[in-house]
C-alpha cells in the first residue's frame, strides 16, 4: 500500500548562510495492507520529516514514494489533495482548525469531504467523541480552548472518522492518560484489522510493541549533519 524507494531529503536554509542539512538518504521500505510499521530512532533522526514526506507536506529530493496508485514526489497538488481526502489519513501532534467551528463539525468534516450525508457524518462523529470521552457539553464548542489531551483526542476522532486505507500516526498516544491511551490503541487495532496500512511514531514503547509488526530505524538513513 505504501512503498518508499531510495528516498532522500535535505533542507537548504537560504536565510541562514545557505546552510544545507542532509536529513535522510536511501530510505527504502514498504508497508502492506493491515500492517503497522514503527519509525524509530533518536530525536532529530528524521522520523517526522519522513512521515511528512509521505503525507506530501515536505518535498522529496530524490527517490519515489508510492501511496496506493500515486507517486508523491511528482504528484500535482490536486492529486495529493484527493489522496488525502480518500486514501491517506494523518494524526499530527497538533490540532489545526478554523476558529469558531464546533468540535462535532471538526470531527465530521473528513466524512463530509467525501460526500457522506450530514446526519450520517454527525452520528459517526458523536460515536467517536463519546468513545474518546469528550464530554457531550463540549461538542458544540470550538476545540481551540480545550486542554492538550482533549485536543489530541479530537484530532484522533477526526482522523478515525473516515476509514482511510492508509494512515500516518505521529505520537497518537502522547499526552493521553492510561484509559484514553487504551481506547486509542484499540482504534488503531481496529483500523489494522480492516486492512489499513499504518506508519507510526510511538515513543511509548509498550504501545509500539503491541501495535506494530515491524520497526524501521530511521537513524540508519541519516547521513549526519553536514555544513
Amino acid at each position: 500500500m505504501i512503498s518508499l524507494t531510495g528516498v532522500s531529503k535535505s533542507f537548504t536554509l537560504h536565510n541562514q548562510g545557505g546552510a544545507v542539512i542532509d536529513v535522510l538518504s536511501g530510505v527504502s521500505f514498504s508497508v502492506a495492507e493491515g500492517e503497522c510499521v514503527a519509525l524509530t530512532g533518536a530525536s532529530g533522526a528524521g522520523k517526522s520529516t519522513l512521515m511528512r514526506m509521505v503525507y506530501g507536506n515536505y518535498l522529496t529530493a530524490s527517490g519515489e514514494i508510492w501511496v496506493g496508485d500515486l507517486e508523491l514526489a511528482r504528484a500535482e497538488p490536486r492529486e495529493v489533495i484527493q489522496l488525502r481526502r480518500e486514501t491517506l489519513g494523518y494524526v499530527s501532534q497538533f490540532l489545526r482548525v478554523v476558529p469558531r467551528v464546533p468540535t462535532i463539525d471538526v470531527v465530521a468534516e473528513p466524512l463530509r469531504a467525501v460526500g457522506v450525508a450530514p446526519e450520517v457524518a454527525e452520528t459517526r462523529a458523536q460515536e467517536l467523541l463519546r468513545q474518546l470521552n469528550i464530554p457531550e457539553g463540549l461538542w458544540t464548542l470550538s476545540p481551540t480552548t480545550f486542554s492538550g489531551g482533549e485536543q489530541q483526542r479530537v484530532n484522533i476522532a477526526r482522523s478515525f472518522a473516515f476509514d482511510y486505507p492508509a494512515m500516518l500516526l505521529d505520537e497518537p498516544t502522547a499526552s493521553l492518560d492510561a484509559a484514553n491511551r487504551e481506547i486509542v490503541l484499540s482504534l488503531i487495532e481496529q483500523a489494522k484489522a480492516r486492512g489499513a496500512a499504518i506508519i507510526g511514531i510511538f515513543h511509548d514503547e509498550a504501545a509500539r510493541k503491541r501495535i506494530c509488526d515491524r520497526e524501521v530505524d530511521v537513524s540508519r538513513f541519516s547521513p549526519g549533519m553536514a555544513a
Partner: protein
Amino acid sequence: MRPLLSVRTVSKRYGAHVGCTDVSFDLYPGEVMGIVGESGSGKSTLLNCMAGHLAPDAGEVVFDTRADGPKDTVTMLEPERRMLGRTDWAFVHQHPRDGLRMGVSAGGNVGERLMAVGARHYGDIRGNATDWLERVEIDAARVDDRPTTFSGGMQQRLQIARNLVTGPRLVFMDEPTGGLDVSVQARLLDLLRGLVRDMGLSAIIVTHDLAVVRLLADRLMVMKSGRVVEAGLTDQVLDDPQHPYSQLLVSSVLQV
C-alpha cells in the same frame, strides 16, 4: 478533468515598471488557490488581469465557459467578458465600498446582481436576497437598511452575498479579510469555507496573511517582484518552503 481557468504567460507592465510577468498555472473546478507576497509583488495586478479588470500586455486567460467551452477572455469581446463578470465570476474587493453600492439598501445590493442576469419578479428577488443575507449571517430585518449603517464586517459579508447570489463558478478575492478585526476574520473564514465546500466553488484569494491561506487554500503561489517564485500544495509551501523569499516570508510570521 478540464481546468476551469488556464493562465498562460500573463504579463503586465506599467511603463518601465513590471506589474507581473510570465505567470502560468491551471485552476481546476473546486480548487482554492492562494496568492501571497509582499505589497507591490504583483498579486493584485495578476488578479485584475485574470478577472478582466486590466488588459494584460501578453498571455492568455482561458476560462471554461458554460456555453462554448474554453475561451480566451483577453481576446473575447467586451460584452461577453462583462456577461461572465455578472454570471460565472465574482469579485470580492478588499474594501466593501468598492464592491457595494452604498446608496442602495442591503436587499437592493443583492437583488441588483439578480436583475442583471434577468430576474424580474420582485417577490422572488426580495426572497432570494433575504435568504442570502441570512446565509451570510446578517439579520433579515436589516434588508431595507443601507450598507452605510453596517459595520465593516457586515459590509464585507454583504459584499460576499451580493457576489455569490448568482451562483458563480469562480470567485476572485482581493484581501477579503484585510482590515477586519480577528474575531470577525475568523467568522468570515468559517463562512467562506462552508460556501466554497457547499457550492463547489473555485476561488483565487490574494492575501498577505499566511494563516488565511493555510485555512482556505488548497494551493499556494508565492510572488516576488512580479514573478511566481514558488508554487505548490499550501502546506508544502508553508512547511517546507524552497525559495529564499518563501523561507523568509514563512519565518517572518509572528507567533501568537
